[in-house]
């Protein structure tokens, strides 16, 4: 990445979960941090998230999941992201993510895991340090 290019983050709401307060708060924090942010809105399928991430040439793909369906969703999403050549991008996820699910999320390729109560600056710093 050249110094001139801003980090571009796609913030997505996977599945049917309608709790978007947290995702929108994170979007605002990322914008204030100087990142370019694309927010997908609610109810995105795995196919839609892969397509938007590709079309937008995202550096970071960030999911927000509050309603418990993160594991089945991420299991479906991973091969789609890989197929689109997005394996080298930074994948992160936040929301209601029980500790016992973190190992599988990491194994699926989500390098940043931000459960409820994470501080905004931690998310921003993690992206700054790890964005490709």
């Amino acid at each position, binding site marked *: 990445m050249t110094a001139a290019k801003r980090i571009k983050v796609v913030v997505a709401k996977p599945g*049917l979960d309608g709790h978007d*307060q947290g995702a929108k708060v994170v979007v605002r924090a990322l914008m204030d941090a100087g990142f370019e942010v694309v927010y997908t*809105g609610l109810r995105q399928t795995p196919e839609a998230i892969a397509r938007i991430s590709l079309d937008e040439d995202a550096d970071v793909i960030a999911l927000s999941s509050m309603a418990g*369906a993160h*594991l089945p969703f991420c299991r479906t999403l991973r091969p789609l992201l890989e197929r689109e050549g997005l394996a080298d991008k930074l994948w992160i996820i936040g929301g209601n993510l029980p500790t016992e699910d973190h190992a599988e999320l990491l194994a699926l390729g989500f390098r940043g895991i931000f*459960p409820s109560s994470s501080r905004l600056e931690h998310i921003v710093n993690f992206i700054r340090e790890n964005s490709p």
Partner: protein
Amino acid sequence: MKPKDLPEGELRPVFNESGIEIKPLYTTGDLAASGGEAMIGLPGQYPFTRGIHPLMYRKQPWTMRQYTGFGNAADTNERFQYLIANGQTGLNVAFDLPTQCGMDSDDPQAEGEVGRVGMAVDTLRDFEVAFEGVDLERITVSLTINGTAAILIAMYLAMAEKRGYDLRKLRGTAQNDILKEFIGRGTWIHPVAPSVRLVGDTIEYCTKVAPKYSPVSVCGYHIRESGADPAEEMAYAICIAKAYADDVIRRGLPVDEFAGRLSFNFNIFGNLFEQVAKFRAGRSLWAKVVKEQYGATNPGSMWMRMIAGGGGGGLTFEQPEINIVRGAYYALISALSGAQTMALCCFDEAYTIPSEYAQRVSLRTMQLLIEEIGLTDTVDPLGGAYYVETLTNQMRSRMEAIMAEVDAQGGIVNLVAEGAIQAKVSARAYKRQRDIDAGVFRKVGVNCYRTEDKTSEMEFHPYDEDDARAQVQALDCVRAERDGARVRAALAGVEEGARAGANVMPAIMQAVKAYASVGEITRALVAVFGRYIEPVRF
């Protein structure tokens, strides 16, 4: 500003979340300056600031109705029976996301979501199983359903009718507040205008067919969860209630025929006195709106009947056991505010679907107030306190100002369709989160009094994929057994009714009785109304 930075003798200024400055002492002079005693009155009398009934809890304590539902109808029925056996007096049903979004359990988009956050419903058969053995006259049922409310209300009425209940006497509530779904919660389906029309259809239909049923519970609750302050929560809810009333009045229904069956759902977290003033102010404001703007003459039309509690936004992931204490304060606030029904979020709810144990703790919290703490002895015990009455007047003025602003900007329906309200409340949520992160907005256990102790053990609610598979099989069975021609004709009737601009409820009733599914009926409506496209605005 920290107290130590202040010149000696000066107090740190205090503002409540709604932006009203709080003085260290209130006297009769403050009350006079805020508008005096004109809006206080007596309980059971206009403007109902002190309560909608003359004797309130002295005559009958609040209904206790914990939010419950998961897996399939049989699982949920089992938890219902548990709660009723433990003294719960109403049911508040949670549905899974496919049901809420108008998808059947075998829809590809329902993968991994069937029965996860609530009970899965595909057809009338699921309602028959879920409420088996529940006495629908003694236990009133609240359905937390919005996008597909017209369909699920029809299922509830059809189920009750089948069991021999007289629909003219049947009580119960559906949430059915779609405008707030666009602001927070997000289970919309159709664009804004036809969505409001569907709410109007349910109100009109229930007024005629099930006049004791409350077809709408207008929710400030989720608007507050999305970031609104308490005054905005109440003001936006009243704007939304007016939008539904306007739709029904345009159809020629007199206000006194339906307004008494509109109910409300509000949130409780944060400052005790601000919440109590919010409810007392909102109750009198709604009465004033219904009387003066709509010309209602029946006092019952002016009642703001409400469920108040929850408090999800106030509970913390950190030190979850102190959420039990927060819940107790929220229940106290609800009782001091004159709510008709109470529900509490459980201490483990920041983690998981509440365990039976956590549900029982919440239930006992409410029962304590009745049995030990004296909250049912006298009506509106804070009434007359200089602080509470002054704050009630000030909160009412602030709500009126917010409502006037909404009207000046084109009305709540347009502002929601444009995404303007959504942008406003999410900006507020962001500011609050920054203030929490900075330690300015204090949260115990989060930005002060933190502890690094290991969090107490949580009993996680298991998600059973076999349950989801069983649900799909059950749906296949219903599809195989039902009369296909009757289903097709009924679905055509739904589409035709929607296209003709008729009230679609009679057609939906026919479809439901033919065991048409939630997904099939939704698709018939989508064919006419289309789907909502979310405006993304920051």
